[in-house]
């Protein structure tokens, strides 16, 4: 395009643009279209925030539920015994099951000489070590056989009581069963467990 043609085009464009403006095309969207568009914009903004409401509600529910569970756990039927903790400290070096396991394991040794040695340990060590007949540390002030904090879940607790029986800690198993029944009155204890504890053990027995 030559310079002259360019100028002519520019002049034509300017004139046509003037004519277009003077024609006064004043088309505008009708009010209902305006309203629909504006409403759609409002809806889009509010929808963006509404989509977060269900997850927020769920999160709030979980937080409240967790708070309640923690509070219930802290207020469980058996509180930990902070006063006895210093007493327990020395015994912590010797897990409760260990002496019992030792005592239980001793009779299993076939060697006669070893058995006599073990018996000596059991009878002769009474002065220096906790022994069976010497007011074992478990009763009364003894730490519970099963884990704290309480209450444990029923299945876990019963399994622990069975483990105490397996370890020969009959008294501990009885104590734990008593604590279990206090925490879960009416819970059906498996008869296999109560039978091992002897007559009278377990107030509620499972049907099987």
């Amino acid at each position: 395009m030559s310079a002259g043609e360019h100028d002519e085009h520019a002049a034509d464009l300017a004139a046509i643009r003037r004519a277009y403006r003077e024609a006064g095309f004043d088309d505008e969207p009708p009010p209902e279209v305006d309203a629909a568009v504006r409403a759609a914009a409002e809806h889009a903004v509010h929808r963006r925030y509404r989509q977060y409401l269900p997850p927020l509600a769920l999160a709030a529910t979980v937080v409240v539920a967790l708070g309640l569970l923690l509070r219930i756990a802290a207020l469980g039927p058996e509180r930990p015994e902070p006063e006895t903790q210093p007493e327990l400290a020395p015994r912590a070096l010797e897990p409760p099951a260990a002496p019992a396991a030792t005592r239980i394991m001793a009779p299993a040794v076939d060697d006669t000489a070893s058995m006599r040695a073990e018996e000596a340990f059991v009878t002769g060590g009474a002065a220096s070590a906790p022994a069976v007949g010497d007011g074992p540390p478990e009763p009364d002030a003894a730490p519970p056989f099963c884990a704290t904090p309480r209450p444990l879940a029923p299945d876990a607790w019963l399994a622990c009581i069975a483990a105490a029986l397996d370890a020969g800690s009959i008294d501990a198993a009885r104590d734990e069963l008593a604590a279990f029944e206090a925490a879960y009155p009416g819970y059906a204890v498996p008869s296999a467990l109560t039978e091992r504890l002897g007559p009278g053990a377990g107030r509620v027995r499972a049907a099987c």
Partner: protein
Amino acid sequence: MDVPADQDLMLRFRDGHTAAFGELYDRHRGPLYRYFARQTTRASVDDLFQETWMRVIRAKDDYRPDPSFRAYLYRIAHNVLVDHYRREGHASLPQASDDIDPIDPAIGPDGQYERAELRAAFAAALERLPAEQREAFLLHEEAGLTLEQIAAVVGAGRETVKSRLRYAVARLRETLGARYRAMEELR
């Protein structure tokens, strides 16, 4: 007082401020409506106009600052128009309105008549243009886009758009004919 730029309003709308959208809408509703009004039937204008804004609203969360929101808007409008043409085929353009305009005291009844005549003539002249040339003219005149921006909107080269615009002007001048010459004589 600084007037917020279009893209700033769009970003604020993206961030949840519907008032920002309202201002953006007020700025562009007229030209965008006339862009469609000059290229399709009266029955379709409202739908195409509304569809364009719906697409803008739906895409707001993905909006990224654009050097020209105007070009962004008309790119969407162009796509809406193309989709319409594909569905309906090129439809006849609206005839010049027979509505009687209210008398404008600034120009009087004679001026009112002249204006109505000019509008009808211009509408008819636009209708006779090929679609690409008509769109190039409207994007230049109604949307106020540069040649580069028009090229980006329609997906063509700058020189192609420049040619379309030049041919559109030439044909409008030829079609308007005597009226155009009369207008120029009055200058």
